[in-house]
């Protein structure tokens, strides 16, 4: 019965089948090995349906029915995989599942199939895919593509893909292979080094040239690694700076040991989550800008909570640092549990908008966009904070109150209000840090706890009450941490930083940039 059906099927489909019993499209309904071989076979078959079918497979749009017929889902319509004609499958459909081996085959196949696209961007992607999955069988196609290619960038990549494919095969003549090694060596990145390192077992002259290429790439990479380390350090530093700059106000300027500072950061991150949900529900067009909308809102939410905390709790505890510490610590536990009851204990998914994901390659340095934007954002927040302190009446009054409270009161400044607003400002800045952290860390009730110790470290190291000190100290700690990490490991690295910091505070108890003058003695 089944045999009959298969025969009938083959008969009906005979125009699409090259040889009986060798039907790659039908194999797509088989197991992972079948699918992989089918993709390989399809990509070189010249079948006009190859590209749409493999693309559908890649996007999870290829479905298989109970009778093993294959369909492509396009919106609500179902297209027959073989003919591309709309139809209606009988019975329920299941998507064709992939595994990593199949995915690799698909990438290579799509490279093969889109190499002659009219769009240079697609050709570039195709060349990249072919470079990543070198296959000697693709060489004739690559040669044809190279002969036609006019765009320099695509041409270079095609040559590299060709070199990779030459080296992947066993039968290329030695001069060709040596030439290919030169091309890969010029590419100079880890992927090239990876391919060259695989050549150790080849004839001596090839192996020697490859080893030399690996060494040359490693030398260049060493220098790039230094630049990369600095970028990582600045990036970590910018995160520390964001987390600490709010504390630099509340602890640095006002002298309040606020253990609930981390929770202000956490509230900012949850605000981002709520904003993203709301934007997704009501203004889907603005989804990519959700993070930007969240920045002022997080400032307002955390700032308002900060003002409430100052009025209801901290204002009764001025001059009693130990009690402030305990009270705010209790408050931080309370806030965590409140958020946990409200939003649930599990992490919340704050998605990264498209313009913030991915990375750019600058020589041997990978610059990830989300980190880059956070660095820029941290600089912006610091500048804004300085501007508020230096150039606004509020900033003037804040400085007046912290420098000489009684004199400021005598001049008509409502010092309790200024205290509340200062605390609100510091908390609001922490909230903005939360928006940035939601992009790189978990949005969970525990988010703030991970940053509270680091924040205090930054402020103390930089010198209490000095924003420039906070900047320098955040960057220093970030870079030192990132250069220690590969050598000592993440755990020991952190310990070393802490020990160094303790030793430093022993020598300079007031930090890098201590405040001078009478305010200090008061």
């Amino acid at each position: 019965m089944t045999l009959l059906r298969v025969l009938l099927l083959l008969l009906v489909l005979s125009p699409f089948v090259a040889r009986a019993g060798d039907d790659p499209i039908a194999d797509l309904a088989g197991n992972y090995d079948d699918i992989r071989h089918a993709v390989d076979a399809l990509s070189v078959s010249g079948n006009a349906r190859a590209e749409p079918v493999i693309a559908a497979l890649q996007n999870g749009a290829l479905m298989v029915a109970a009778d093993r017929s294959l369909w492509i889902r396009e919106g609500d319509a179902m297209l027959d995989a073989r003919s591309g004609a709309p139809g209606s499958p009988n019975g329920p459909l299941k998507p064709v599942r992939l595994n990593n081996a199949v995915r690799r085959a698909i990438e290579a196949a799509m490279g093969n199939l889109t190499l002659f696209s009219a769009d240079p961007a697609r050709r570039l992607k195709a060349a990249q895919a072919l470079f990543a999955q070198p296959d000697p069988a693709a060489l004739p196609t690559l040669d044809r593509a190279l002969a036609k290619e006019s765009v320099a960038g695509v041409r270079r990549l095609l040559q590299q893909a060709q070199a990779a494919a030459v080296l992947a095969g066993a039968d290329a003549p030695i001069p060709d292979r040596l030439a290919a090694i030169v091309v890969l060596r010029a590419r100079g990145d880890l992927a090239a080094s990876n391919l060259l390192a695989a050549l150790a077992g080849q004839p001596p002259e090839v192996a020697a040239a490859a080893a030399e290429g690996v060494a040359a790439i490693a030398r260049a990479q060493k220098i790039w690694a230094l630049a990369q380390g600095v970028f990582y350090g600045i990036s970590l530093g910018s995160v520390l700076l964001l987390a600490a700059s709010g504390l630099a106000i509340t602890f640095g300027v006002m002298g309040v040991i606020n253990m609930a500072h981390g929770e202000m950061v956490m509230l900012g991150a949850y605000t981002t989550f709520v904003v993203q949900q709301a934007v997704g529900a009501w203004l889907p067009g603005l989804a990519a800008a959700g993070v930007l909308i969240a920045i002022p809102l997080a400032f307002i939410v955390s700032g308002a909570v900060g003002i409430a905390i100052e009025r209801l709790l901290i204002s009764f505890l001025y001059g009693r640092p130990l009690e402030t510490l305990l009270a705010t610590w209790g408050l931080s536990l309370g806030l965590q549990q409140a958020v946990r009851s409200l939003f649930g204990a599990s992490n919340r998914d704050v998605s990264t908008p498209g313009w913030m994901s991915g990375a750019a390659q600058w020589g041997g340095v990978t610059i990830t966009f989300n980190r880059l934007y956070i660095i820029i954002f941290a600089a912006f927040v610091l500048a804004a904070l300085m501007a508020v302190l230096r150039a606004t009446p509020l900033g003037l009054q804040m400085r007046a109150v912290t420098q000489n409270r009684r004199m400021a009161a005598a001049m008509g400044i409502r010092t309790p209000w200024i205290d509340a607003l200062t605390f609100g400002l510091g908390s609001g800045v922490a909230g903005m840090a939360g928006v940035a952290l939601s992009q790189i860390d978990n949005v969970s009730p525990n988010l703030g706890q991970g940053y509270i110790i680091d924040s205090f470290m930054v402020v103390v190291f930089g010198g209490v009450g000095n924003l420039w000190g906070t900047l320098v100290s955040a960057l220093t700690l970030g870079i030192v941490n990132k250069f220690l990490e590969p050598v000592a490991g993440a755990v020991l690295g952190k310990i070393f930083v802490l020990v160094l910091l303790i030793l430093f505070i022993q020598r300079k108890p007031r930090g890098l940039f201590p405040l001078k003058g009478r305010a200090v003695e008061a």
Partner: protein
Amino acid sequence: MASLRTWLRGAALGAAALAALSLPGAARAQDTIKVGILHSLSGTMAISETTLKDVMLMLIDEQNRKGGLLGKKLEPVVVDPASNWPLFAEKARELLSVDKVAAVFGCWTSVSRKSVLPVFEELDGILFYPVQYEGEESSRNVFYTGAAPNQQAIPAVDYLMNEEGVKRWVLAGTDYVYPRTTNKILEAYLKTKGVADADIMINYTPFGHSDWQNIVAQIKKFGSAGKKTAVVSTINGDANVPFYKELGNQGIKATDIPVVAFSVGEEELAGIDTKPLIGHLAAWNYFESVDVPSNKAFIDEWHGFTKKPNRTTNDPMEAHYIGFNMWVKAVEKAGTTQPDKVIDAMIGVTVPNLTGGYAAMMPNHHITKPVLIGEVQGDGQFNVVWQTPGTVVAQEWSPYLEGSRDLIADWRKPLSCGNFNVKTGKCGGASK
């Protein structure tokens, strides 16, 4: 006057009626079997453990609707050890000596288990521990329904070696006992398979590590030595989200360097956009996506009980499901909830698991489990790409570690020992 008498009589009648009503009530209260639930509902571990408390309440509720156990209703006693390890021991003592519970279902981290272990041994309680762990332990009072390393880690490594052709290994973990022991076992195992020292990179990070730039770059570099590389991740809980985000950002795809994780399940993926992670792997003994009728019924019931139609299920929940059903069966077999009798009755009890097979309690107090390898899908679920042909028996003492090679656990009489040394023929200490 008459009215006062009437009133008095009425009042007396009312009081009598109240007393009559309340008496059987009091009798009923004594007739329940108490079940302790020892999971953190606040603090860092609340993220994982709250779900297990809920699933236990569901299972107990279901059992009561089926008529309870030994003709009595089950009564859950929930305590909150607040992710605080010493508090776990205190709460365990409270459950056993004040509430007099018949069995306790609880703990997540190994350190919390180690903290309550002496309490259970001293007061002769029963603990069901539902999480995969590092092994190297077997107590008479604990039933381990999670996976031992050979029921999760080793099959996963085998899969990568055979199916993906991996030759170079990054063992990345959070710095505490489970990753360190598991990695020690894996390192020894890989070496028996002929993997050179230079092809193994071991990396530890602190709890909640959030800046992965350097380490991911290091992994990328390690993976560019011309051999297929994979990451075996025992990174725990919160640190996973930034780790996977960084992998995605630096453009490491599963087709280049696959990551197989032992602590990342459906629950953890709920906080991440999984599209950049498609193809990364996890090894568990259960996935929500397993398509069998018993699992579908379980998921439906879970959604009905929690009234949240998209709440996920995960591996430790299945472990509690198996453990609870085993306990019920053992109590029925023993005819009593007395721990000594139930402990002896437990061995050999077999109940269905949620992946279409059966789980049996072995003499080493661990259960048999199938091992499933799943790939992350775009919707936060896993697609099972490989699984062991049958179930795997736990090796609580790893044959790959120097100190435990010759030890076995067998709680059947007359051996009754958790760490019997087959070389010297002696039971080494932990047994009573």
